[in-house]
């Protein structure tokens, strides 16, 4: 990475015993990522992580679009913490970057305004007779993977290296805004040059692409997409980023935010339909992975179990570059063994 000062900005990441909170949208967008994270923690790293089936939304999207009042968000967050407390955990790991921002923000507000914490305790008790402790540590799963990147590297079957050329793969890393832009000191490397994903890429053999619009919004931006009339802004922001990274010919993009991964991937189809253009030389687009997918692939997990077939830009060419085997016949095979109907092929974005 161009900036070497990231090392001065580290954060505390718990070593074990995590309470995991799933994301509302990631399970739809990237259905294999959360399962892969749990598998890595439990099977590769032998860590204790608890996944409570009673968990629910953090209200993040509703909160940031002004649909859910602050008091409600605080109470909902408190209930999630009460689940953690009930099971005896102190290290909270929310899957979604927006949730990570929401939890960090609520804890900060409660620290600065203890009367709000008292009120939240009262509201939670009135609503569902539950009580809660504040977590001792809040870390995003990308923090946890970053924390154990070297341990995971030892178990990996593949590296981020082009097997045909022997050169490191060029990887664009994109950090969700709510990871470090709200509270810079809560992000590895802080907000200007976050190192959480760059650290993984470098530890696993890849090369980080530093391009002019690296900090720019992915295009999601909540209101840009959620308000239908604003979706032009959403597409144009993604387009700006893709145009900026295009000359560097990245092999793939990796992100730690559900919205970013989603829009950097899906809008490539939209732009191809609107303008007949793609951002790689051959018209296939730039694959977009979550960090769990990136780690899972290198660990040798089945690409189809990771859910790569759900992406808009298909990953086979990337898998070929790394040398990861896959069976095309299994691409649309469901968990019960049935072959699902393959999606229609777009006209302008090759698959």
């Amino acid at each position, binding site marked *: 990475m161009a900036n070497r000062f990231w090392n001065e900005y580290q954060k505390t990441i718990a070593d074990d015993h995590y309470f995991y909170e799933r994301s509302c949208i990631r399970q739809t967008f990237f259905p294999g990522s959360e399962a892969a994270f749990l598998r890595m923690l439990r099977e590769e790293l032998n860590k204790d992580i608890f996944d409570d089936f009673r968990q629910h939304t953090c209200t993040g999207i509703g909160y940031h679009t002004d649909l859910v009042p602050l008091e409600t968000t605080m109470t909902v967050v408190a209930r999630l913490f009460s689940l953690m407390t009930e099971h005896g955990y102190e290290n909270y790991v929310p899957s979604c970057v927006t949730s990570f921002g929401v939890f960090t923000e609520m804890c900060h507000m409660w620290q600065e305004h203890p009367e709000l914490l008292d009120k939240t305790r009262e509201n939670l008790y009135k609503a569902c007779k539950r009580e809660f402790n504040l977590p001792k540590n809040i870390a995003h799963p990308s923090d946890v993977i970053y924390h154990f990147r070297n341990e995971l590297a030892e178990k990996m079957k593949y590296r981020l290296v082009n097997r045909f050329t022997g050169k490191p793969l060029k990887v664009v890393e994109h950090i969700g805004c709510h990871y470090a832009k709200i509270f810079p000191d809560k992000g590895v490397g802080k907000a*200007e*040059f976050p190192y959480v994903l760059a650290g993984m890429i470098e530890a696993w053999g890849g090369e980080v692409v*530093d391009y002019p*619009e690296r900090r720019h919004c992915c295009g999601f931006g909540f209101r840009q997409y959620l308000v239908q009339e604003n979706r032009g802004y959403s597409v144009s922001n993604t387009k700006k980023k893709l145009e900026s990274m295009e000359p560097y010919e990245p092999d793939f993009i990796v992100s730690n935010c559900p919205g970013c991964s989603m829009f950097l991937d899906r809008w490539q189809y939209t732009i191809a339909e609107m303008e007949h253009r793609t951002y790689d030389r051959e018209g296939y687009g730039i694959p977009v992975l979550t960090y769990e997918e990136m780690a899972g692939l290198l660990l040798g997990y089945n690409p189809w179990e990771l859910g790569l077939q759900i992406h808009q830009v298909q990953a086979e060419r990337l898998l070929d570059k790394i040398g990861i085997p896959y069976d095309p016949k299994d691409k649309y095979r469901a968990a019960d063994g049935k072959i699902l109907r393959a999606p229609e092929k777009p006209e302008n974005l090759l698959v």
Partner: protein
Amino acid sequence: MRKVAIIGAGPAGIEAASVLARGGVQVTLFEKSESPLKNIQDKAFLFPNFQAAQEIADDLSGKLLTDGITSAFGIDIVDAKWQGTEWKLFDAKGQTYVADAVLVATGYQVFDAHRKEELGYGIYKGVITSLDMENMIKHSKITNANGDVPKRITFLQCVGSRDEKSGNNYCSKLCCVTAVKQAIEVKKQIPSCDVSVFYMDLRMWGQGFEEMYRTAQEKYGVSFVRGRISEAAATFDGRVQLKSEDTLMGLPLKMTTDLLVLMVGMEASCGTKVLGKACDISGEYGFIKTVSPHLYDNDTGKPGLFAAGSCKRPMSVWDSVNDARAAALSIKDYIDQLKNEN
């Protein structure tokens, strides 16, 4: 004969030493570097009359030859203690020195631009500081990151000054006019270069400054844009992409430049901070605190301990020199008073 120790051989220290020595006082001039006037030696020309910095440095260096001045260069004074009748100075190696009075003239250092990560100094080759630009001007070799003649150069004011994020809320006072001076110098050396200065407001407080600002626009075609640059990033071809807002137009602005020059503000030097703390005379932002900026601006409130120059706040060379003369007068009064008491 009474002895005065002056700590710091910049314009203030040398001028005060010269005035005191000519008045019959024995002066030891301590300087932690091996040679004096480092901050002036780094400059090419000084505003507002574009006089060569070397001429001023030579003039000041000549004053070191005044009878009564002992130059003690390469000695880093890190502590000073009042002993009841005199001051005892301690250097970094543990050596001690005594003096009847002490003048702190430890000066400034420029803001470390690495601290503004978003502006890319030390990360992208096309991002330099005003000190780097001064060096290029001095050697008539203004080049971009690839060693070519730049087609566009952009200056950014208030880097590390008037900036709460970097902990320096104060105005560094001299950067505005320095940017105007450097912009003119660039245009003199590369007339075809497109030069812009991004500013919050331009503080042309000194004699001749406003005229320079006008000349930069009218004669040299320098553009002044009211807006902060929020981030810099390298482009594929090694230039620097800037994002800003033109607050007069009310529009966001994105542009590419060959060189981004960060106008780094003045901070209290390390020596100023160390001595300020050791002698309990440290004020806001680590500058030396004096009894009153109006009437007693060289008095620290400690017996026989005085301060002059940019160890107190950002100052130009002429401000520092005038301040040093005033300090010398205060020290002379103090010493004369000691004589009378004895």
